[in-house]
């Protein structure tokens, strides 16, 4: 009988590069930047790493395929290196590989590193790519903002929400993330904006304007994980442990079948339920201290807070406008600026979110530090609302 991942693996160290338009750096430079910090934080040498997982999504833009780029760049000592890709959950997927390797007892110390160098395309937004074989024949001409924008249309129709009211709540979400990002020296976007800026920004995919979309950034983040015993043996105190690690992947029910109405993420609802069970959390609205969710677009964050069971269905607008998720609110969301302002180098994003939770739980988040956080939750959403990969991770103080 499976017992889940709770408290079996702890974070030994983490690193994160500065995110942004890193015109003067290659992907390899960003990997080293994150790795150097992570290695120092862990207090180990590279030869103590026994296995590594490498997350990168659009590898054709930068490092290329396989685990080789990670091993070459970091000069890893002929260890197993596995390259993973799972849309925007890629970074979390790398983390999952490393955590499971440690939990299985196969290795003592494992590395997860994610990287993406998106700003070598010559244009804004995510790179335009083919969809592969048969998909090219029948997939609609979708972009990321265009697929997520549809959440708004379906949400408005389902909950009979006025378009302006929804857009105002979406604007509040972006303003909040910019306020948070302004306090984060590693964030891509550090400017503050107003709700009017959001409301009046150029349209990207109706109703998502420029400020409803997250930054497209270069960056890398990494985690070194081990067992609680080994961490203590290495002199670590106040351990941050993995409480839950869940993934749900669409199987065609949303896009081909069933009663899914386009206004929410079926996968996130499933993954969240499983994560709460795995972490033994019965009332997340009371227990979770902080969220870093996949705010690729403002509307994604809004519906995700319902899918995670924090806001009641159809009521996220109220919570958002009440400031429930603001930095000074009941449960801050995107305290580090989120994808919106920290930035979204795809393969690194899941690890970047965990990096902030790790800093917060270790009391090292500087100006952004919250008082006594106990449980932090991260969430990734890759693909499209109609067919996607959703990951939910909970970390927290070991034993709590």
């Amino acid at each position, binding site marked *: 009988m499976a017992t889940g991942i709770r408290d079996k693996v702890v974070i030994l160290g983490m690193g994160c590069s500065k995110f942004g338009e890193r015109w003067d750096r290659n992907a390899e430079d960003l990997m080293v930047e994150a790795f150097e910090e992570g290695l120092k934080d862990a207090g180990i040498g590279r030869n103590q790493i026994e296995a590594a997982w490498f997350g990168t999504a659009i590898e054709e833009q930068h490092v290329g395929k396989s685990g080789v780029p990670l091993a070459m760049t970091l000069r890893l000592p002929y260890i197993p290196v596995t390259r993973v890709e799972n849309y925007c959950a890629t970074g979390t997927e790398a983390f999952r590989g490393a955590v499971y390797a440690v939990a299985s007892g196969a290795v003592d110390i494992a590395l997860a590193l994610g990287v993406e160098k998106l700003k070598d395309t010559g244009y804004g937004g995510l790179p335009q790519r083919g969809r592969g074989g048969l998909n090219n024949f029948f997939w609609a001409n979708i972009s990321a903002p265009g697929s997520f924008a549809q959440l708004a249309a379906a949400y408005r129709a389902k909950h009979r929400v006025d378009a302006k009211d929804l857009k105002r709540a979406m604007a509040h979400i972006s303003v909040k993330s910019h306020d948070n990002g302004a306090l984060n020296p590693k964030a891509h976007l550090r400017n503050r904006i107003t709700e009017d800026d959001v409301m009046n920004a150029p349209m990207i*995919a109706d109703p998502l304007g420029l400020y409803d979309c997250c930054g497209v950034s270069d960056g890398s983040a990494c985690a070194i994980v081990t067992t609680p015993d080994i961490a203590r043996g290495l002199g670590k105190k106040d351990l941050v442990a993995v409480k839950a690690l869940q993934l749900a992947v669409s*199987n065609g029910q949303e896009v081909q079948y069933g009663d899914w109405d386009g206004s929410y993420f079926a996968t996130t609802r499933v993954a969240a339920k499983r994560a709460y069970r795995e972490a033994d959390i019965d009332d997340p609205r009371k227990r979770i201290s902080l969220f870093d969710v996949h705010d690729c677009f403002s509307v994604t964050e809004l519906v995700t807070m319902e899918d995670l069971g924090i806001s009641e269905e159809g009521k996220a607008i109220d919570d958002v406008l009440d400031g429930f998720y603001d930095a000074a609110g009941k449960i801050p969301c995107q305290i580090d600026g989120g994808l919106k302002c920290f930035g979204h180098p795809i393969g690194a994003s899941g690890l970047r979110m965990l990096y902030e939770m790790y800093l917060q739980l270790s009391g090292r988040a500087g100006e952004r530090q919250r008082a006594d956080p106990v449980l932090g939750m991260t969430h990734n959403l890759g693909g499209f609302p109609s067919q996607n990969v959703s990951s939910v991770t909970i970390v927290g103080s070991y034993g709590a």
Partner: protein
Amino acid sequence: MTNDFGILSYGAYLPRRRLQRKSIAAATSWFNPGLRGLAKGERTMANWDEDSVTMAVEAARDCLAGVAPAALGQLMLASTTHPYDDRQNSAIVANALHLGSALRVLDVTGSLRAGTSALATALAVGNDALVCAGEHRLAKAASVQEMHYGDGAAALRVGRGAPIARLVAAHSETVDFVHQYRGHDRPHDYAWEERWIRDEGYMKIVPAALAALFKASGAAPAAVTHFCMPCTLPRVAAGIAKRAGLAEGSLRDNLAAVCGDTGAAHPLLMLAHALEESKPGDRILVAAFGQGCDALLFEVTDAISKLPPRGGVTGALARRREESNYQRFLAFNDHIALERGMRAEVDQGTPLSTLYRNRDMVTGLVGGRCRKCGTPQFPRGRYCVNPSCNALDSQDDQPFSEIGARVMSYTADVLTYSPDPPAYYGMIQFDGGGRMMADFADVDDGKLEVGMPMRMMFRIKEHDAVRGFVRYFWKAAPSGKQ
């Protein structure tokens, strides 16, 4: 021919956008002041994702009224603007219409008479046939042709059954009179002086063909109630009617003011329009000019009153959106070098082996319906998508192209590359089950809403400019129903 043979049904299609001729003149008359005199009315304008094949498919669907005829033995596609020189264009149409592989198809081209020649041949052969004609006509900027031409398609089903019109007589004259031509690999027509075309061409060749038809058949010219004579030169058709001894008032509107001349499709489009407005006993004379003349005389039967309703030319004309942006017309026809942006640079190569394996799915919008649980699904997987079924290889073919759908979610996307931004797309739910994320076509800005009824249309998905390949698929367009 026996009494039960003739035209069984008709259909028509016109692109929704209607380019205002005054907009053309406003942009071009600085160069050619003579165009001001033609700046009246509007012409049809194919969308960026329409060509003679897609328009012919839509006309054929209108003609078949949602029913694929089991007896169909032949499909003909007439056009001077076939998208492919070597790939049977009519085979694409046949696949989109689910006509099966046991079918004789023929691309007819090379003359503005291609449509009537195809129809005359089908009537002469005497088997069940679907005759389609479609044109996406290109003309140089600031040319007279640009003013006169239109884009569109028509389809006629010929065969045994209860014909709505029977052929009374037919005659063809072939004369290598080159009033205009388009050489191999040339995008545009090259035309000679109009006065010569009128005096030596139309006014001599067409009356001779009509006279021969009446003489051979013994039919009375005065009995003709509808005379379909595509011609953009002023007063020529009326002059022909008079010379042929046709009754006054029999000359039909050539749709110049509302559609323009759709080339090889136009005689069939005018015939469809005439059938639409005819009553039993009417006689319809169709003449087409181009390196000679085809003349076909029909008598409308009682069955016309029992023909199921369809859009026809009237419906196609009514499905209209005014277009006053001449630059858009130029861009759609690749007449200006737009900065399309790097997102347009994605390689659109088509793996032909993949297309072949999935041709029914891609060209016919064929999905599956589970025999065990009845779930319709697109695309069909090996396992049924119903989570309480998941049966293996349990699905029969389920075409979705004729099934209505409703919008579940939508957006207007200005980020993704589209030749006509914003790109509209969204999730649609088919009536009776099945759903997909679909590109939308012919959407009005700000008019989409959840629950809006849609109809699938056969359209161009991508142009592979590098390899000269056109990839087709289906898009959802507002059906106009409630």
